[in-house]
């Protein structure tokens, strides 16, 4: 009796998408180590940052996935906040979370979200989330 070998484990949540496009940027006083699967997203963020800045031990890791399977409809932003997390969603099209303890910003942006929406909605959300790290330096090095 033989069994067909199982395929590789599924990645239903798209946790393991490769993020080969990388830059070290500065937003306000916060240095951000950006990793993304989208060159276009990286370019848009680079244009909105103050400058390129080498990563340091208190840099915030920002991983953004351009998501081909997310819905296109961008809804009004909605946030959920705890003592250490801030999560902002604009429907399925934009889901971004900031974890102030581990200094990470993690998010998914629908592939059909236009550059205009990224520029005028998503990047301001990201900048507000980055600013939370400037206000909270207690977790540096955790």
């Amino acid at each position, binding site marked *: 009796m033989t069994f067909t070998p199982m395929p590789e*484990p599924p*990645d239903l949540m798209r946790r393991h998408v490769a993020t080969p496009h990388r830059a070290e940027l500065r937003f306000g006083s916060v240095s951000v180590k950006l990793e993304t699967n989208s060159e276009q997203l990286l370019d848009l963020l680079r244009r909105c940052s103050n400058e390129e800045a080498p990563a340091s031990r208190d840099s915030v890791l920002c991983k953004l996935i351009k998501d081909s399977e997310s819905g296109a409809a961008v809804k009004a932003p909605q946030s959920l906040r705890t003592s250490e997390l801030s999560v902002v969603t604009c429907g399925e099209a934009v889901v971004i979370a900031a974890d102030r303890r581990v200094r990470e910003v993690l998010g998914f942006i629908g592939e059909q979200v236009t550059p205009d929406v990224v520029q005028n909605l998503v990047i301001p959300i990201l900048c507000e989330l980055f600013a939370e790290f400037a206000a909270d330096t207690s977790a540096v090095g955790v």
Partner: protein
Amino acid sequence: MNAIHGISSELSCGVAFSLAGRTCVLRSDSAELRELIRPLVRSDLPSGFTLHVKVDSALQEHTPGRAHFRGLHHLAFALFGDELFVFDMLRSEVHAAVSLRTAGHREFWVNTLFPIALGTLGTTFGVVPLHCACLERGGEALLLAGPSGAGKSTLAVALAKTGFNIVSDDWTYLCQDASELVAHGLDAPVKLLPDAIQYFPELESQSARQSLNGELAYEVSAEVFGAGTRRDSRPSVVLLMRRVEAPGVELRECSPDLVRDYFERSAERLPREMVEAAGTRARVIRSVAELACYSVECGGAPHEVAASISDWWRAKR
């Protein structure tokens, strides 16, 4: 923040309840939700997750049947319409903003949210979700594994009709506390595809509906089939099943490696950062593979397959 709903989920009122052999804690401003978990209240078990639920009256109840899941590093997100759930593997916490109606919707929490929370966070507190049914008889259980569509749930119901008790029909939650392997189920319904109606006339009075993975399916209580249920059991046997065209049942001892490979590949990959959780899962899968492992090729009507397996189980014991 340009938030329409600024939701703080800092909630103080905590209620301890049990789920898959762990004590979880609910913190919510919803009296309805606190009331509906009352049957689960218990606090003498190892710690599980904490569930923070904030009711937002501006939110609409989601349409059943569809959700959007994403995850990165230690965080996972589930969007049911505008209702948001954040699963935090680092802190073993769930934070949620829900509508008033969802807060009081027992089936949503028991059938949908608790299985998702255990599936996402369980490995961080020693509860390992494995893709298999679990059936108990005489104080021992068999784990029935096989790829989606192999007919695990259909065979589980057919086995229940021969005297087995259903612990779970799709996902089983394994814990290894003090070297003892225990399989837990939830009170989630049995999920059967529409063609199961040809074998189970009890389904004629039920309606199939779209399930979370998009499949049309019956989701019904085991009681509909007159089946007994158990919350947990000690597994002693693993059956790795495969459907074939020809009627009959062929059971053979199989390699533990085959079983280990099945479980390792059928579970979603954990984030690379969760090293301890990955170790817990690997350890539990190894223990499962050390049980008596059999491959079973089966074809034909499920009640005939179940009768053969039931006879084999009795003879084996």
